[in-house]
């Protein structure tokens, strides 16, 4: 009898736990509102999107918008796609993930959405350039852009009377000057490999052709030819960073820069919010990376940091368009811009944040070009290759790096290159 009791208790405990879990997972579905789910990939902007979600649901009686901002969102989204569990709208960057999702025909053509006309052409063209195989139609709404260049400590610059450099030699001279005054010019934080893209993109945009990736795929040129100067200058920067940049990650770099441990930090505008979280009082400025000897050759790296795409399987187009209309209202965009210190992709002449004011002329005259890494396949891990190159002290390190860049490119893009060729042959016939 005793055993039986024990056995019963264990069984009861098991059943109870299961019941309890059922109770927790099975939520009620009482309201008849149209549900729209948006998943966006910037967890650091969760506060802004909570407010946006709240405002939307307050204004709309018949639609309920749910926005989630998961971490590791690219993986979360891919995991959901592997599951076949699609949200209605996704907010991602204008990068290779977008290109791949689009290539897999996961997005809806939204050319009939009226808000498109208000989007700056330069950003819409960037999305077009991301199409692996050119497509008809529009598949993304560019929402917010970021700029990559050099962030600097304004107080420190004023105090020492340093000038903003306009050419590469001026920049190197400035670094020397700062170093001679006993201050560290740059912070790198290369432990997180992706931060290598900060200076890399800024240099590549200034020095290499914007269509380099497509041209290499088409066999018209090689990275060895196009990226030689970028690679060389990238390595020169190491003389002005912290002594052991591979020990510190992005968070460490932001914190160190916020504490005044370096005068400048070559990174995108997205870091400003992060830096301010470590030091809310800090006075940060940003200028375009002077990669060239001639100032007029300099181009600002600016790409789409956040854009919205509608999933093909989405059931209620009208409701989704209502969400897009709402998101693209100036006052709503402003919530996001204030939270992330980003730049709007709309034409409507919205205010630019004071930290980015020195980049404004470039933005206004559309002297901008997309981040090169937006065209690199993520599994190729170009960032880790750059880090490897920087660590490599051998004489021919640049040559080795560029050679493996070329070889890996062909390897990782093999299927795409084959399709491009087939398409070309098809067109010729």
């Amino acid at each position, binding site marked *: 009898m005793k*055993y039986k009791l024990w056995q019963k208790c264990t*069984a009861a405990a098991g059943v109870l736990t299961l019941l309890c879990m059922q109770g927790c*997972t099975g939520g009620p579905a009482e309201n008849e509102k149209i549900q729209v789910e948006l998943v966006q990939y910037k*967890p*650091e902007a969760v506060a802004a999107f909570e407010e946006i979600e709240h405002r939307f649901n307050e204004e709309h009686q018949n639609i309920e918008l749910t926005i989630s901002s998961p971490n590791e969102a690219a993986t979360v989204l891919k*995991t959901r796609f592997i*599951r*076949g569990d699609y949200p209605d709208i996704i907010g991602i960057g204008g990068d290779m993930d977008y290109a791949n999702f689009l290539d897999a025909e996961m997005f809806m053509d939204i050319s009939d959405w009226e808000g498109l006309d208000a989007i700056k052409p330069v950003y819409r063209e960037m999305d077009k350039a991301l199409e692996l195989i050119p497509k008809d139609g529009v598949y993304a709404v560019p929402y917010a852009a970021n700029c990559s260049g050099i962030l600097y400590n304004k107080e420190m610059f004023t105090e020492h009377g340093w000038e903003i450099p306009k050419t590469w030699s001026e920049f190197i001279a400035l670094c020397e000057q700062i170093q001679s005054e006993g201050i560290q010019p740059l912070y790198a934080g290369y432990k997180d490999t992706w931060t290598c893209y900060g200076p890399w993109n800024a240099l590549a945009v200034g020095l290499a052709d914007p269509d380099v990736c497509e041209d290499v795929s088409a066999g018209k040129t090689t990275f060895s030819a196009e990226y030689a100067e970028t690679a060389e200058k990238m390595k020169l920067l190491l003389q002005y960073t912290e002594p052991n940049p591979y020990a510190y990650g992005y968070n460490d770099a*932001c914190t160190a820069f916020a504490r005044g441990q370096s005068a400048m930090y070559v990174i995108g505008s997205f870091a400003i919010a992060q830096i301010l979280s470590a030091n809310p009082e800090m006075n940060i400025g940003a200028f375009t990376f002077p990669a060239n000897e001639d100032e007029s050759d300099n181009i600002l790296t600016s790409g789409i940091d956040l854009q919205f795409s509608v999933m093909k399987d989405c059931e209620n187009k009208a409701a989704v368009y209502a969400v897009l209309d709402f998101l693209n209202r100036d006052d709503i965009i402003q919530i996001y811009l204030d939270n992330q210190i980003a730049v709007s992709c709309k034409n409507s002449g919205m205010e630019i944040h004071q930290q980015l004011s020195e980049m404004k002329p470039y933005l206004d005259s559309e002297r901008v070009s997309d981040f090169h890494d937006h065209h690199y396949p993520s599994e190729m891990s170009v960032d880790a290759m750059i880090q490897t190159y920087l660590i490599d002290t051998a004489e021919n390190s640049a040559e080795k790096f560029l050679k493996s860049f070329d070889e890996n490119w062909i390897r990782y893009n093999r299927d795409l290159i084959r399709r491009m060729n087939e398409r070309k042959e098809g067109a010729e016939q």
Partner: protein
Amino acid sequence: MKKRTTNYMITLLLVLGCITVLFPLYMTIIIAFKQPAEMTNDIGGVLAFPSSWSLANFAEAIRVTDFWHSLFNSLIITVATIVLSILIHSVAGYVIGRNMMEKKSYKFLYFYIVSGMFVPFAILMMPLVKQTSEMGLDNRIGVILLYIVFYMPMNVMLYSGYLKNIPLAMEEAAEMDGASTWTAYWKVLFPMMAPMHATVAILTALGTWNDVMTPLVILSGDSGTTLPLAQLNFQTQFGTNYNLAFASYLLALIPILIFYIICQKQIINGVANGAVKG
């Protein structure tokens, strides 16, 4: 000859060796209590006590990581896995252990299940993500189910090994009294395997409580996180504040630390038991 004297030399060395274990924990605690302004790079400052033992970091960490919710998830998953593992794996261990000596098919079954121990999660991960969602199991129930499958090889091995110590006469006696095989098992054998239940419970608990990968890929966004998963997420969002991060790590460690302090003897014995009898 028999009475050895206390070896103070070894005692001393072992006490010194404890530093390697306790130092990281000491650092975690003091960093968790400090404020960002107290973080310095000189050695004195690094090792010093915080200026005040304020709980503010912990309160903040509880808020931003949704601590109670992830704690609840972790508890539910771990407890359910333990209970179901004991019930299911002991049956499997019993049936296989009692039959594998005579019957080839059960011998094969034993090796089939035990060889599952060598299947790396990496190969199952991607297909499992697809499969669990097709079955509507991309939630806590799915994670529990997967744990039951993952720990089956080890536990079946433990149970069937332990069974060798229990003479067949035990259940035969019960069956003589008219009990069916099923009731004889639950009435006589299941309680006799109590020491092994403890071992299985502890080993399974340690594995599930600390596991990151399974919930990371299986739990879909809205079903929440577990405690270790919350730490992974925390890194990206609030990474610039080390003190907050360490408060959060410490919070995540506290439940299992408390459990360990209370049941230390049972845990160590349970693990040892698995090695000797298994």
